[in-house]
């Protein structure tokens, strides 16, 4: 659970988010930690607080508790966090190119390091041939990969992804997770992902966090994704259907 230096990349302690006007917290006393090189996937039904956990880590919603990234309060470690939103509401007719989009977090840095970083990640994510295309002409899968490049160009240590498979076809989902898996293992990265796709969770997660306002269970997928745990999390109508025993990761 810890990195080489012995320090977790992400530490969340007693995280509670109470939105204004609500009586019940959206997320209550959630605690977990992630080590370097881990892919952790947050699962849970709609409204269970998965995205809220990510947004709290990013400082987008007020919370109580403690969030530390590489030992620092999250607010002081923003440059160490990359974020890939579930959707991006933008004007499709804007003449904004992929290159301009992925360069945004660099804030105009033009040094060889910045250029090398952009070049490396557009190639790693397979969007090198799209860099001069307008963003509005991309497919869902291409757009998602561009957003991952944008999150990665500053070389963060922690990558947060909110349902990266949303808006992508089934084959594309798997390709995307394989790319993420490669990114994590090649870049000293740690990824925290919200997902509904239990098949992908089973194959790609090192750690599963089952959330339903509170953390219900946590551990490796083979231990956590049991019929009983899923029924507890999603309701008694949920059944586990393993069509690829053991996974093929």
């Amino acid at each position, binding site marked *: 659970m810890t990195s080489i230096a012995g320090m977790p990349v992400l530490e969340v302690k007693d995280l509670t988010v109470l939105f204004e006007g609500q009586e019940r917290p959206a997320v209550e006393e959630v605690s977990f930690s992630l080590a370097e090189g881990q892919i952790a996937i947050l699962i849970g039904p709609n409204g269970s607080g998965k995205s809220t956990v990510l947004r709290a880590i*990013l*400082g*987008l919603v007020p919370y109580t508790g403690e969030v530390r990234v590489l030992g620092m309060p999250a607010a002081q470690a*923003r*440059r160490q*966090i990359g*974020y890939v*939103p579930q959707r*991006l509401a*933008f*004007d499709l*007719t*804007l*003449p*904004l*190119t992929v290159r*301009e*989009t992925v360069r*945004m*977090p660099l*804030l*105009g840095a033009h040094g060889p390091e910045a250029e090398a970083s952009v070049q490396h990640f557009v190639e790693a994510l397979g969007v090198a041939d799209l860099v*001069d295309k*307008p963003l509005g002409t991309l497919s869902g899968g291409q757009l998602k990969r561009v957003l991952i490049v*944008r999150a990665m160009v*500053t070389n963060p240590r922690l990558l947060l992804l909110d349902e990266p498979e949303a808006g992508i076809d089934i084959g594309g989902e798997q390709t995307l997770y394989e790319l993420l898996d490669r990114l994590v293992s090649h870049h000293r990265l740690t990824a925290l992902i919200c997902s509904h796709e239990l098949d992908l969770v089973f194959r790609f997660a090192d750690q599963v966090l089952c959330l339903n306002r509170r953390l219900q269970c946590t551990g490796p997928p083979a231990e956590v994704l049991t019929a009983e745990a899923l029924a507890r999390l999603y309701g008694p109508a949920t059944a586990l259907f393993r069509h690829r025993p053991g996974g093929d990761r």
Partner: protein
Amino acid sequence: MIEALAYPFMQRALAAGLLIGLVASSLGVFVILRRSAFFGDAVAHASLAGVAAGVVIGWPPLFVAAIVAVGIGLSLHRLERVGRLSLDTILGFILPFFMAVGVLVLSLSPGFQPELLSYLFGSILTVGWPGLATTAVVALVVALGLARLGRRLVFATFDPEGAHAAGINVGRLLTAHHVLLALAVIVSISLVGIILVNALLVIPAATAKLLARSLRQMFLLAPIVGGGGVLVGLIVSYWLDVPSGPAIVVVIGGVFLVAWSRAAWRARRVRGASHRGGL
């Protein structure tokens, strides 16, 4: 036209017009990016309250209007956050409310106010040296502001949450943008007037959006259309002896219509080609 340039009033008008055209259209790109084309209209019309207060209390009307406009610019983002109302809804309140206050205040001042017409429709040919100096200072402030904040503003405008996650203070940045916009609107009032001021913010940037193939091109084209349109409009107004503000807006609007027709024609051609390809 050469002889016209010999007149100091024309020189001042061209210089002030060019500066305002460049500044307003550059800021206009962010207005288009934020899809808040209503901003300029609302702040310009709301500034009538400041103009009216200035007339009644005997202060320079545009100075008081600037206080009102900057006050609005400073509070907009906060109002958006605390009031559970969208920017457009807040602007939809600001425009008629402040304008109504302006009209009521003016009704307290006896007699006809001929200078009010110049605030409503602009009178760039009467811009004096102090007016030109003020315009130059505002242009410099906006140019420096955009040079310093431009890239962060693009990020925050395109994806506020992503920008916040990257450590950018989005609220402060958008407030700075609103203040720069408010200043640009106020100096633009002397050129085209309260009624037409939004044209300088929106039309050049919208034209650039139709012509550009990248955001960089859009940022380059908008001031060319804005600054060029103002100069051509002033020349046209001199030749035809017509009011300068409307002439400028008609020239810029004409360029927009050409760009729009071109974009529509290209889109139809692409649709036609894909339809034929599909058969």
